[in-house]
């Protein structure tokens, strides 16, 4: 073994190597998206569509026109937060697969604050968002506590809470429920939010998107610059060593799940306050699962969650056009997402298909480590 006695050559140019590493980190997600498009194209061919015109329509609809970009960012807003929720939990070795339920709670409770009380706008908007986020955070804390003290695995409990939250919010806005909109007739929904609780748009661009980006930066800063973030990442990297180092692992698990759920809850609040102007259960399907794809596409980096969410948001924004022009069911987007997820999560496949030398260092991500973690 050689042992060069030098004074740490890497220390000086750390910033530039971080940038290079960041750029190198982009290759795998890009190839993954490309491969997913190829396989998705084959599936489209099977159902009798021309994949090229379908993809062209998606790009045209979601990314090329001003109103399209606005719609894409609107769709991307809750996805940034949902993706952050999953990515943040991954840092502590936790898989929050229950973004859906947390998002529903956030959406419903924010809507309740939004329609039922009158406040000045500067207070009303953040207050409603905070209540939505905190109710979801409470649910996350319960999940964390069940994991920390009872060993109940979060993958199952969060999924189960999705159904519980779905039923609960359904009830709250149903005809017998306390938050029902009497003018809604058969539609189960809350009354319309007061104007003071509605998040405005800036031209075509929804302001909620900036809130979401702010949370992404905040999450990145928290994880990478603070001692609390160090405790979270240490817990995720080696729970045992964390415990030996004096970190209260149970506390970290509970707090991380709570923060993760808070982010998802705010994502729901933004839906009610910025997009629909009320809470209606059927408006929010599937968003929770998109977060998983986005978090992995971003390789759990909070900042990278933003472009990943914009990409998936663009896909989601094109479904109406696809249905009109090609009579393609909106679920084609879920298939594309599952394919992206597969290729991102399995770098060895990508390496096998694309034999680039430089890709060898695209490390495999073992995120969850089974039941024991």
């Amino acid at each position: 073994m050689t042992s060069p006695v030098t004074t740490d050559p890497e220390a000086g140019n750390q910033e530039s190597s971080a940038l290079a590493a960041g750029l190198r980190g982009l290759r795998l997600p890009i190839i993954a998206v490309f491969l997913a498009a190829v396989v998705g194209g084959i599936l489209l061919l099977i159902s009798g569509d021309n994949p090229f015109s379908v993809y062209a329509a998606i790009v045209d609809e979601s990314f090329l026109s001003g109103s399209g970009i606005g719609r894409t960012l609107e769709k991307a807003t809750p996805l940034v937060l949902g993706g952050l929720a999953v990515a943040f939990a991954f840092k502590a070795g936790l898989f929050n697969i229950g973004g859906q339920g947390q998002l529903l709670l956030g959406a419903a409770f924010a809507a309740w604050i939004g329609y039922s009380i009158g406040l000045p706008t500067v207070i009303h908007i953040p207050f409603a968002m905070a209540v939505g986020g905190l109710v979801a955070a409470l649910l996350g804390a319960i999940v964390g506590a069940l994991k920390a003290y009872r060993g109940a695995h979060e993958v199952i409990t969060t999924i189960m809470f999705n159904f519980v939250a779905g039923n609960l919010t359904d009830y709250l806005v149903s005809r017998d429920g306390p938050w029902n909109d009497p003018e809604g007739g058969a539609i189960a929904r809350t009354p319309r939010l007061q104007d003071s609780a509605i998040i405005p748009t800036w031209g075509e661009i929804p302001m909620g998107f900036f809130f979401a980006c702010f949370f992404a930066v905040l999450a990145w800063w928290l994880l990478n610059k603070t001692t609390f973030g160090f405790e979270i990442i240490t817990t995720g990297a080696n729970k045992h060593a964390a415990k030996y180092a004096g970190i209260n692992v149970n506390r970290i698990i509970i707090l991380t799940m709570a923060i993760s759920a808070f982010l998802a809850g705010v994502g729901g609040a933004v839906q009610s306050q910025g997009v629909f102007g009320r809470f209606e259960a059927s408006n929010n399907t599937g968003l929770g699962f998109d977060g998983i794809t986005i978090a992995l596409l971003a390789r759990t980096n909070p900042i990278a969650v933003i472009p990943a969410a914009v990409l998936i948001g663009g896909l989601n924004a094109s479904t109406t056009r696809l249905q009109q022009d090609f009579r393609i069911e909106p679920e084609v987007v879920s298939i594309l997402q599952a394919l992206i997820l597969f290729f991102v999560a399995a770098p060895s496949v990508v390496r096998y298909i694309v034999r680039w030398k430089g890709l060898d260092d695209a490390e495999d991500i073992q995120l969850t480590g089974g039941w024991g973690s």
Partner: protein
Amino acid sequence: MKDVKPVTLFFAVVALVLAVISYQWDGRQTEAVVSRAVVEAGPLLLGALCGLLCERSGVINIGIEGTMLMSAFAGFFIASYSGTVWLGLLGGLAMSAIVGLFLAWTSITLRQDQIIAGTIINIFALGFTSFYYIQGRTMPGVPSVSIPFLEDLPFVGPMLFSHGILTFSAMFLVVVVHLFLYRTRWGLRTRAIGEHPSAADTVGVNIISLRYRNVILASMLGGLAGLHLLQSASSFQRGMTNGKGFIALAVMLFGRYRPFGAMGAALLFGFLGGLQAQLQFKGALDIPPQFFGMIPYLLTIIVLAAAGLAARPPAAAGTPYEGA
């Protein structure tokens, strides 16, 4: 059977006594609840057997939900277009075997994170089955079997001896999986590779091929679980699994990774489901239906919290094999 614990026996006897008392009190209702419990338990039990067999071999399968959905989808449309229910069942099984092959490939060969692999299956299945779904089709029903004479027995007759074939297959497969797991060469090797794969490897057991075979076989049990849903609902609906694949995982844990344990746990879930349906149907309780709807999910969480620490998963579950 020598591996039945006294506690299990005790609960079984208590359940039986309660059932008899209830039957004396209101025969018809009791029969309805218990019969429904058996039917509801079927898919959970088959799903739990799927998870159990995978984990006993050292592979975590949280894609049971997606496996069920894919199999039900294939089963429904093949039965619908061919007009033959048997072809549908075969097609469903074949589809679940393909899903199993995918899980095996990603988690054994590619050594990918197994929980992510399962999640991919779930997301893909939901998208795929909804995308290719065609409305308004019907399929021939899955045949039922009533065992002559036995079905006429009071109480146990309708409860145990008159069901769709897949409900029978669930009961039968519990026994089969138990016997094979504990009495055969295959079972011994399976238990070994889930606990201590290098011990099996150093005596010449081919871990990769055994894990592949077991994951595919197990996924076909998951496929049967999906077909069982089809048997009850008699048509395919989008997202018809409704989390049952995850509840099956809780059933597996509660049953401590043992086939008969899973059966007990599945019957408990099934019974509560049956009770809920009956009470709701009768309008016996003035509670919003959404709260009834939460029961199985909350119950799963409670079961996990109660059993989570007690159930010891196979030591190697979730870890790809890297060689001795």
